């Protein structure tokens, strides 16, 4: 029982990270139908900005979180303007390869400046551990911080998407780009906002992961990037609650598999889930079936 609670606690923390990254994936895919492979690397950059701020400038946890969200959102906008905008009307495959090239550029470009070595995050949060329900299952203060930050960001995101004009524009563009342009929505601006919000969430995930696991390196983004993408697909890509569900689901399944002794296979399990979901319900668990038009 203790084991189960402990694994759920760990799984929820990992799932929060996946969910935050998956949100950005799903928003970007929803709006420009591009698998933004560079998204995992924006998360990595977020972790490095957080590392620089806490180590060299002695920022606290929250200031570092907010500043690195700002930096990554600006980075997201720049990437979209420089790399994706020229290719908006090109083929899917060209856009995909561009996304991969941006991803490589960020990974290896940063590696050139910060060297490939692993960095250790300073202790920015007090190391407090609480026992749950009188059992030996331990919940770290970090777990609580991660969960709270994730939930707050998600509530803010829901508010932005459903209650503000920008959010309305984003939903409209995701539904039908041309029609929304005819209605007077500035598509370029809306896409920039989407990238900014998605990248800010990834940046937050980066700082959280740095605080939680302590170590970061320039290639840390690729695997969680793919996992977050799987999470987005599980929930139904383009659907925001789906990405959150997928993130938590994947996080808990993965920690569960590791706990049962299959830690070497945990990545394979994620991909098996992905393929099963794609085969059984290609539009994701939250997605509705779309009829193909001839």
């Amino acid at each position, binding site marked *: 029982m203790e084991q189960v609670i402990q694994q759920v606690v760990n799984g929820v923390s990992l799932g929060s990270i996946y969910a935050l990254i998956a949100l950005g994936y799903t928003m970007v895919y929803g709006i420009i*139908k591009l*698998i933004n492979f560079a998204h995992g690397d924006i998360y990595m950059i977020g972790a490095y900005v957080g590392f620089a701020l806490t180590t060299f400038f002695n920022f606290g946890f929250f200031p570092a979180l907010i500043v690195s969200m700002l930096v990554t959102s600006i980075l997201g906008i720049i990437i979209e303007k420089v*790399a994706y905008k*020229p*290719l908006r009307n*090109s*083929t*899917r*495959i*060209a*856009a*995909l*390869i*561009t996304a*991969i*090239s*941006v991803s*490589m*550029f960020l*990974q*290896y*470009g940063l*590696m*050139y400046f910060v060297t490939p070595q692993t960095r250790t995050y300073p202790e920015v949060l007090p190391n407090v551990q609480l026992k749950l329900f009188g059992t030996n299952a331990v919940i770290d203060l970090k777990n609580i911080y991660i969960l709270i930050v994730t939930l707050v960001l998600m509530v803010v995101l829901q508010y932005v998407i459903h209650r503000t004009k920008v959010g309305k524009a984003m939903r409209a563009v995701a539904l039908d780009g041309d029609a929304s342009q005819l209605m007077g929505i500035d598509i370029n601006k809306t896409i920039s906002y989407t990238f900014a919000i998605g990248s800010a969430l990834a940046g937050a995930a980066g700082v959280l992961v740095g605080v939680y696991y302590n170590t970061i390196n320039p290639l840390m983004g*690729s695997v969680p990037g*793919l996992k977050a*993408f*799987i999470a987005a*697909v599980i929930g139904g890509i383009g659907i925001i609650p789906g990405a959150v569900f997928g993130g938590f689901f994947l996080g808990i399944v993965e920690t569960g598999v590791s706990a049962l002794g299959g830690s*070497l*296979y945990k*990545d*394979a399990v994620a*991909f*098996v889930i*992905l*393929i099963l979901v*794609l*085969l059984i319900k*290609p539009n994701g668990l939250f997605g509705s079936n779309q009829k*193909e038009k*001839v």
Partner: protein
Amino acid sequence: MVYSVVTRRRRCKEMFDMKIGTKKNMLTFGLVLAIYLVVQLLLNMGILDSYIEINMVIIGINIILAVSLNLITGFTGQFSLGHAAFMSIGAYTSGILTAKLGQPFIVGVIAAALTASMAGVIIGIPTLRLKGDYLAIATLGFGEIVRIIGLNNDYIGGAIGLNDIPQYTNWTWLYFSVVLTIFIISNFIKSYHGRACIAIREDEIAAEAMGVNTAYYKTLAFVIGAFFAGIAGALHANYFYFIKPDSFGFMKSIDILVIVVFGGLGSITGSVVGAVALSILSTLLQGIPELRMVIYAVVLFLIMVYRPQGLMGDRELKLFKKVGVVNGNASSK
């Protein structure tokens, strides 16, 4: 693919006249043989040293991979990000057979091609339901699963890899594998079956409505593509002595896809040119290891922005041009 009446008549005539011993075919055959003999001679005389030989092997393997992926992605329009998985299955099959079971290379190569094409069936059939991006992700997942299984299998060395594979790949094996791949795939494209594949790429629904068995041809494309990727894997394993699952990861699949897109989707000549150009670029960049990937990324990006259709588009380079050919090759989207 709509042919004008004239083109169709010409094609019928061509089919009727089809003989193996035409002048054109003899010329091509002679050229192929001449290149082989000249390079073999230069290798024997030591003018082409081992450094050049390694690069020739890399280029040859990349050509096989690119041409076979072009059949899947360029001609049939099925977006695959798991081509390296087929290569790894071939490499391990041949590696195990030659290194652990002491079989001759020919057995290794054939077994590699067959096991890889079986994997092609396994990946081909379930992905029939998927299209576009979803298919890409599913094939990516398949590739990662193959890699992780390889990492955790102790018989084949796990993450450390499989060592001491005998070096059987030489210029003869390499050259004739490349020629065979290009020959078979380019003839396949021109056949009835190949046209069915191209029809699927152009418009799957229309193709189905015209009676093309789309499920069969999509799987067939995966099987043939995987077959040659398996051969490439065997050549790789039996040249470099040593293979490990991580050499056939996601990035390797991307590298192959980049060659195909760079050369031009739906152009076999393009794949060959792309494989040569990008392999040379990659070799040249090895001098500056820190910036190698950065430059590679920038080059990739520039190609995609300025020439998204690739070097050759979907055109082919014809050695012996026919006069007055009106080829109704619709541009692919």
